[in-house]
């Protein structure tokens, strides 16, 4: 079973849920796909083996290039520009799709490897831990996420800490998930962000459920939306200073008195997946 933990905004509690659920699932793999802000792995350890991740960027052979600009017109990310009669590659905008090489009629484009980030990995007790890390200044971490997801298999249980929002990197992160756990705060902003991610997972036809984090008041905001759209509410994490403090000091809170909240959520997820 693969559980992806998502939310429309940062700070909703994705990492809190992902880390603690992974902790409770025996032998599970933890995959931190939030490559722009990878912090989930530090709950488990501070020592990692670092694996480099490369992606392909185009290199233009000026001897072969006739400045037909077909590659420039093709690139929807504008990673190629006409720079005073020469094709200039802007690696920071490149999404490594390889299209420019395909459309070039003169075979003037080759690809080279460029370092875009790392995968930090370790094994703690019976958990394998993997966390992607995007190199500062790089536009997209999708290829790092692809590599992280290859670290696990369908037979293994795994929990994915997704990036916030509903962009390409989230789509990649949930591609193989059996269940999408939507973490939301009971605020109007939280609700709007929840709608955004729910709209995305509907397209992918994924099973899903909501956890309300920082639950204190106004829970009905989220509950009404869940009822209207027939999304199960799997549980509530209380809005408590003690919990926040423990979590901010990298404690795995499902080890102590807060464990029942996470046990309850996990049990509900298992039921939903079997439905």
């Amino acid at each position, binding site marked *: 079973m693969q559980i992806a933990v998502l939310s429309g905004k940062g700070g909703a509690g994705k990492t809190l849920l992902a880390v603690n659920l992974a902790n409770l699932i025996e032998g599970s793999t933890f995959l931190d796909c939030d490559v722009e802000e990878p912090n989930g792995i530090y709950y488990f350890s501070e020592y990692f083996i670092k694996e480099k991740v490369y992606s392909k960027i185009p290199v233009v052979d000026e001897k072969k290039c006739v400045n037909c600009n077909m590659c420039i017109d093709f690139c*929807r*990310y*504008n*990673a190629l*520009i*006409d*720079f*005073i009669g020469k094709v*200039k590659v*802007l690696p*920071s*905008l490149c999404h490594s799709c390889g299209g420019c090489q395909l459309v070039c009629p003169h075979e003037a484009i080759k690809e080279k490897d460029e370092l875009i980030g790392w995968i930090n990995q370790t094994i703690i007790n019976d958990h394998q831990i993997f966390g992607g890390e995007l190199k500062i200044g790089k*536009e997209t971490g999708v290829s790092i996420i692809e590599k992280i997801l290859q670290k696990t298999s369908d037979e293994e249980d795994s929990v994915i800490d997704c990036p916030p929002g509903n962009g390409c990197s989230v789509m990649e992160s949930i591609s193989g998930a059996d269940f999408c756990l939507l973490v939301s705060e009971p605020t109007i902003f939280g609700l709007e962000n929840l709608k955004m991610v729910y709209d995305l997972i509907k397209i992918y036809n994924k099973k899903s459920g909501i956890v309300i984090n920082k639950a204190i008041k106004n829970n009905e905001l989220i509950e009404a939306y869940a009822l209207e759209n027939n999304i199960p509410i799997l549980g509530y994490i209380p809005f408590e200073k003690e919990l926040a403090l423990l979590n901010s000091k990298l404690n795995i809170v499902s080890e102590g008195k807060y464990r029942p909240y996470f046990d309850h959520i996990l049990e509900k997820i298992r039921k939903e997946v079997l439905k």
Partner: protein
Amino acid sequence: MIIVIPTKEQGEKSFVSEQLGRANYFYVYNTDKLSGEVIDNSYKNERHGAGVKTVEFLLKQNTDILITPRIGEKSLEILLETKIKIYKSNAKIVKENINDFLNDELEELY
């Protein structure tokens, strides 16, 4: 000499746009001919790289001087490889920014 300014509205009486890559129009002024031209920014709604496409546009116009309130990191990096000089616009309209530049009253950014 060619001076380019990103503008909100069309023409020399417009205010300078607050953005460069996503400006509505560009005002391209030729100091030798004493005439200006309004050009639509066809890349203002690009999801990625509007700024770098603006640099490409500036190069095609044989721009000597860019007058803008600000410039993004990626565009600047490429512009620094060119001969284009960048000046900081003031709060006045486009025409007055050009006059102020010609009277050496604008600050050179890069």
